[in-house]
Structures are given as C-alpha cells and as structure tokens.
C-alpha cells in the first residue's frame, strides 16, 4: 500500500503521457488533413473528398497505407543509423510534450526549467534529420541534411532570443508560471512584445522546416531532401515528427505569447444573472453546437447513404463535445481543465493555420537568402527587441511608468531598427548588384 502511495504522484503524469502518445499521431494526422483542406480552399479546389464525408477519414486511410507499404533500406545505407534516425526525430518531438501545459491540470511535469527543457529536447530532433540524411548515402539526402543543420542552428538563435523577451516579462522558465504571469498581468505577452512574437513565428517556421523555409526537403530542388530514400512507415515517422514539432512550437508560442490555456478576455468577468457561469465560458459550447448544426444541415446533401450517416455521427460527436464543455460549467473542479484544454488547442490550431497560410502564399527562399535573412535581419532584430524589452521593464521599474506604455515605446523604437535593417539589406543588395571590378 505504501509503495502505491509512493507511486501515486507518478500516476497522473504516466496517464497523461500515455494519452499524449496515443492521441498525438491522430492529432498530427488531422493537422495534415486540415492542411490539405486549407490548401485546397486557397487553391480553388476541394481537397480530399473520398474517404469519409469531406475526407474526414483520410488520415486513417493514409496511416494504414503507410503501415502496409514495403520497407526499403538502400543497399549502401548505414543500416543502423538509417533505422534509428526517424526514431530520434520522433522521440525528441514526443519528449518535448512532457513540459507543455495543455491545461491548468493537464501537464506531465511542471519543470522549473520547463522552457529550457523543451528547447533542449527538441534541439535533439535535428540528429534524426542529419543522421538520416547522412545514412541514406545519397547526394540529395546529404544536402538536405546539411541544409537542415545549418538552418536549425541559425534560426534557433533568433527564436531563442525572441523567447527570452517574453521570459523577461514572465520572470520564470516554468511553463505554468509563464501562463500565470499573463493571467496576473491581464494581458497576453503578444501585446507586450509583438516583435518577439513575430520573430518567434518566423523562427519556428524555419525550425520545423516548413515553407517558405522548407529547404531541407525542397521537392523542386532536392526531391525530398533528407527523406528522399525513406519510404513506408519510416517515412511516416519522419512526417509525424515534423507535425509533432509543429504542435510543440505552437504550444510554446501559445504558452509564452498567447496566454496558454487562458480564455480570451480572461480578466473580463460577466456572469449570467443568478448563476456563477460566466458568459464568455459559453463560447466553446456554442461553437460546437454551431458545427453540429452545420453537419446536420449538410447530412441530407451527402451523395451516399454511408456518408449521410457519417455526417450525422460527426454532428453527434460535436454535440458530445459541446455537452462536455457545457457540463463542465456546472462542475467547478473540471471547468479550468476542460476549458483550458479547449482554448489551448484552439490557439495551437490558429497558430498552425498561420503556418499553412504562409506556406501557400510564399515561394521558397534560396539557401543563401535564408541564411542572410536569419543572420542579417532576424538575429539583430531579436537582439534589438531583447534590449528594448529590458529597457521597457527598467523604465517601468525605475520611473514607475506603466508597463504597457513603456513597452509600447520600446517596441516602436525596435520597429525603427527593423526598418533600418531592411533598408540596410536592400542597400547592401543594391551595392552587391553593381558591377564589381573583380577584386
């Protein structure tokens, strides 16, 4: 019995861990579906429509297909490294989830170095890419790996500096404490350090190898970069790692800049008369009710009977979610957990939507341009931003100015620096374009 009591503190983390590992591939699969649907919508077409209504079962079909595919290891590859490289990638991505607070009660471990832990662990994921590219023994893979290594090291610096600007405000490394700080301030950090958020957004796109920074896997140049020789489930694991990483960086951004699990207007409290229920807490339930209603409206318009049924099932699922969200309003113990989880996931999806939007709008950078953007623009800007935020805090502490106005001032100054950097870059480009005398 005493052993059980000793182990009790480990029970919840283990359950959370299992839940995350079990749900994450599914979530990643649906992020892929979301991506394809968003892409299709932006490109004047429909996207996957065959498997399930509006392609809702597509991720599952894809996963099955990949599982059943032949597993090919090239003859001259380094077999062991080739075998283990995708696992390194996906493990690093999954371990990082240990410190991400999905809700006030839903976190595997609230480490006091939470953010550093996530950064440290997710920086290990690069080995999966580099070693996989090297082990494949192919030029395309090797170049993808090299590009990836250079790109990650460069952009991690800028992204890390951007995170520090938020850390200055939160004055802690613990993810939970950072959210609490935003709750206490009544303001998400994105409004205090918008430039930091922007830098982190760009840096996180680069770190997850997404367009327009997807050079390690640029299909028009390197076929598939480090994944060229991979196929079947090993390839799927890389894919999973990429999407898991997307969720990790979105989680970091959500926690640091977007108020974590906090509801929008978390400090605005208006109750429904006669109850303790806040009006804004009704939003999630209403949202799912709306989706359910839309599905019911769509159901008769489906071409096949199975799809009609399926659409109704989706509607039922949404109703269930709406019910859970609504029911938790009545049970104060569950309210923060359920609603916190909802808002956290919602913010993650918004952030990822930003990724997708960028991907389908911009062409791809060239490698030297990518490096120049990172080193000549983002890192100086991140440094300027860091100094700006520090100065703002000092102004706030020593002169007694309000935190927000002082940060606004320094943000404007940093913006000036950004403009100067862009101008300098263009001037540099113009000078470089001049015919040189070949010195």
């Amino acid at each position, binding site marked *: 019995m005493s052993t059980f009591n000793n182990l009790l503190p480990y029970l919840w983390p283990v359950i959370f861990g299992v839940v995350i590992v079990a749900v994450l591939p599914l979530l990643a699969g649906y992020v892929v579906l979301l991506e394809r649907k968003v892409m299709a919508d932006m490109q004047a077409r429909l996207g996957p429509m065959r498997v399930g209504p509006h392609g809702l079962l597509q991720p599952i079909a894809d996963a099955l297909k990949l599982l059943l595919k032949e597993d090919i290891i090239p003859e001259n590859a380094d077999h062991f490294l080739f075998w283990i490289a995708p696992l390194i990638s996906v493990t690093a991505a999954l371990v990082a989830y240990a410190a991400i607070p999905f809700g006030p009660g839903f976190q595997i471990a609230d480490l*006091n170095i939470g953010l*550093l*832990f996530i*950064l*440290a662990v997710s*920086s290990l994921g690069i*080995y999966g890419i*580099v070693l996989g590219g090297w082990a494949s023994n192919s030029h395309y893979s090797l170049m993808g790996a090299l590009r990836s*290594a250079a790109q990650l090291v460069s952009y991690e610096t800028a992204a890390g500096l951007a995170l520090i600007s938020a850390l200055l405000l939160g004055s802690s490394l613990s993810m939970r404490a950072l959210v609490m700080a935003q709750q206490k301030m009544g303001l998400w950090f994105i409004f205090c350090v918008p430039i930091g958020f922007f830098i982190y957004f760009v840096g996180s796109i680069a770190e997850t190898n997404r367009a327009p920074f997807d050079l390690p896997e640029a299909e028009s140049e390197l076929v598939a970069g480090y994944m060229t020789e991979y196929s079947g489930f090993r390839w799927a694991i890389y894919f999973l790692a990429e999407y898991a990483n997307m969720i990790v960086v979105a989680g970091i951004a959500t926690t640091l800049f977007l108020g974590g699990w906090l509801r929008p207007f978390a400090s605005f409290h208006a109750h429904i008369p006669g109850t303790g229920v806040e009006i804004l807490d009704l939003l999630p339930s209403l949202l799912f009710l709306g989706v359910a209603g839309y599905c019911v409206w769509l159901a008769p318009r489906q071409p096949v009977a199975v799809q009609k049924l399926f659409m109704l099932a989706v509607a039922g699922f949404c109703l269930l979610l709406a019910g859970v969200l609504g029911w938790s309003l009545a049970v104060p113990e569950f309210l923060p957990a359920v609603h916190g989880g909802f808002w956290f996931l919602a913010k993650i999806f918004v952030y990822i939507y930003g990724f997708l939007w960028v991907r389908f709008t911009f062409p791809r950078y060239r490698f030297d341009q990518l490096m120049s953007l990172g080193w000549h623009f983002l890192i100086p800007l991140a440094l300027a931003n860091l100094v700006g935020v520090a100065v703002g805090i000092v102004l706030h502490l020593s002169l007694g100015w309000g935190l927000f106005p002082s940060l606004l001032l320094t943000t404007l100054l940093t913006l000036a620096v950004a403009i100067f950097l862009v101008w300098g870059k263009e001037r540099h480009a113009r000078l470089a374009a001049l015919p040189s005398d070949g*010195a």
Partner: protein
Amino acid sequence: MTAMSTINVAFFDFFAAITIISAVLMVTRRNVVHSAIFLITALLGTAGIFLQLEAEFLFAVQIILYVGGIMVLFLFVIMLVNLDVSLHQLQFNRQKWVATILAIALGAEFLLAFRRGGSLIRFAAPGAGMMQPNTELVGEAIFSNYMLPFELASILLLVAMIGAVILAKRRI
C-alpha cells in the same frame, strides 16, 4: 529516503556507464560519423549526471549548447568534408599498447589514492539550494561574485570569434 538514494545511485551508475562506454567507443570507431555520435551520447550521459545532481540548468545548457549546437556543427563539417580517408588509415600507431598500459596504471593510481587517502580530499557540501530552482542561483553567481571572470571570458571568446572571422574571410 534510502530508497530515494538507491534510485539516485542507480541513475548515477547508469549515466556514468553510458558516458564511459560512449567515450571508449568514440575513440575506437573507424567511421568518423559514428565517433561523433558516440561523442554525442557521452555528452548526453554527462547531461544526465548533471540532472541527477539536480543541476537542471546545467543539464539544459549542456544539451542546448553542446549537443544541440556544437555537435551539430561538428557533424556538419564532417559530412561536408567527407573524411573517407580515415577509413583506410591505420587508426592507432604502434604505441597503442604502451598507452593502454600507462592509462591503466594511472587509473589504478587514482583508485588507490581515493581508497587510501579519501579523507584528505574534501568534497563540497551539497548546496542549500537543493530542490529549488537553481537557474536564479547560477545567474546571481555569474553576475555578482564572478562578474569579472565572466566578462573576461566573454571578451576572450569575442576576440577568438573576430579572429576566426578574419581568418576565414578572404575579402572583407
């Protein structure tokens, strides 16, 4: 409490074993990339020991800087330069046996010294900040007591960096 310390010791042994075995493998591998990988695992083992000593900050810094940064660049250079040559070279010279014997002798000497004269060596007492966030402690130490050495080290690194840039860049 004893159970806790047993677990601690077990973890220490685990990480120490990883570190030592990786270090030996790193030296003995012929393939340079494999050597680099074992260097990485050795560094990870060291990071584990930091964690086991409850120095989480050092753990994180060790991983971010050494494993996530420096070793990536290391691998980068190895892959770029493609050192196939080493595969066809003699890995050790003729003195390897002498070196091994000397190393074993030195190890035995250390062991003997610890066993016989352990009482003469003073270990620092565990800090009062055990089980507390020690990031702040590190920060305070660096920016107050050890301000001068820290800044000197920074300047040294800066000089080294500028030197490297000048050496590498043919035309500024």
